């Protein structure tokens, strides 16, 4: 079971086409701040409308809106880690006893039902050991950890009461 899950996570890496362009554009601007400030910034929402949708379009080709336990659910275009949907929570509610992290990276996903692009905050749920179920891993636009704002290997529990990663949620911010 565990190995199956791990295999699925790794196999999905090649298939997942998460949209990261808007994150890159947001964070390219932040990068300059980063170099001077030397503190990991909390990611702001890109409301500038400059989001590039090429990668979101690629993910949307195979995305669906019916089953949020699958890696190709439309909101998961940039999601990395174990889906909270499979761990006693939902895509926007943390499982009982875990804490929602206020920090996240942000993706732009297209809902294939209306063709619109939406901003999604990938806020982790923290405070319990890793859920271990429904791993999904996207690498589209993903950068090494010396560009931490674009890296999905980091435990994104900054600001939560605990730095123990439990699962990944996908909270709607609004239209891109």
């Amino acid at each position: 079971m565990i190995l199956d899950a791990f295999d699925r996570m790794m196999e999905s890496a090649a298939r997942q086409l998460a949209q990261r362009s808007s994150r890159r554009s947001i964070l390219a601007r932040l990068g300059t701040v980063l170099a001077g400030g030397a503190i990991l910034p909390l990611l702001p929402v890109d409301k500038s409308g400059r989001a590039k949708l090429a990668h979101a379009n690629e993910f949307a080709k195979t995305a669906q809106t019916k089953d949020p336990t699958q890696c190709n659910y439309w909101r998961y275009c940039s999601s990395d880690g174990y889906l909270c949907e499979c761990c006693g929570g939902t895509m926007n509610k943390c499982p009982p006893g875990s804490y929602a992290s206020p920090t996240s990276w942000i993706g732009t996903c297209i809902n294939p039902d209306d063709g619109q692009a939406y901003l999604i905050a990938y806020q982790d749920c923290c405070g319990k050991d890793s859920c271990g179920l429904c791993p999904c891993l996207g690498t589209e636009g993903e950068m090494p950890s010396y560009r931490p704002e674009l890296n999905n290997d980091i435990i994104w529990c900054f600001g939560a009461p605990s730095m123990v990663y439990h699962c990944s949620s996908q909270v709607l911010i609004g239209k891109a």
Partner: protein
Amino acid sequence: MPVEGGRIVSGLIGLWLATAAAVVQAQQAPAIPAQMPPAAAQPTQEDHPTLVLPEPSPRWVYVLEPVFPYLVVSKVWIFDGDGLAVKGMINGGYTANAVLAHDKSRLWLAETYWSRGSRGTRTDVVTAFDTKTLDPVGEVVLPKGRFLVVPKKHNATLTSDGRYLLSFNMDPAFSLSVVDVEEMKYLGELDTQGCSLAFPTGDTSVASLCPDGRFLHITFDASGRATKTELGEPFFDAEKDPVFEHAAIHRPSKQGYFLSYDGWVYPVSLDGMPKVGERWKLQGAGDEGWRPGGWQLAAFHAGSKRLFVLMHEGGPWTHKQAGEEVWVFDVERKQRVARHKLPHHSHSMTVSQDEKPLLFAITETAMLQVLDATTGEEKGHREGVGISPYLLYTMGE
């Protein structure tokens, strides 16, 4: 973020108090009666001792496993490359990083624990293990924490002479924690000014990679304070073609090879302020569609001056895809000299540093395979190396 910092500080104060209380308790408490009466010991014809390892062989491999579905614990497996026998195992904490001593006597883990497993007081610590007994023989608490991330080799390193261990921290300020591993003492933090990772460049100096594609170089003194900080020029485009974190670094020769997502090789002299040589490309004519990728995707064998790289066929943003082949390059001629097909696609790989090097590679299904690094001949494999083995270390690398 200040809340988080305050939490750690208050947690550490709590830890200190708890430690102090435990010491007092240990001194004052009456001796606990043995749980097992001596008469219950079963006489046996044979002895039942605990084994002690010989000095580690350069042909052994240390496999770090973060155990993804159970991240609060990790393991380091030790295998003999000749036959893949298990030599032993070490337990670690949350997203641990391993560092091997230059003199082979120690393995250090930079690791994180919570006092109640997944909750309670957080402690970040560098733990020293004896490489023969595999016993923990000392620890140094990291009061500023560590960078919590899927383990990457260059998040912790030793200086060239092996005296100082540097542990990268982003919590959320960027710094390197300096630990004197001879005295087993925490010295302080070096501000990395937003740059990450740790590449040794001397006895008291270290380089980090910055978000805009340049090196930061810090020299420090015996008290762990920075005495000189230098910033290099950008040598790659961090926006369009970043270099992988897992550069192939050979500490004794102070040589490093940084690889980019698209396959450019940046040779870097890590003797003092990093000096970047002329870049060259992994792929030549007819290699279209092939890319470097995986996790620990490159290794350097100093004796033969060969660079080994995991390669796969794939498009852009497949930088974490497992390698189908290992390409071998002569770094002096900047030419490929061999292509080894991997029997099982692998995301991490390293080579031993002896004269007849072994190539170790681990798969996403927890298999460790070993090849003759020179000929590519498969020498064996072993399944079930835990659940999610991720990093490989050899002595002398």
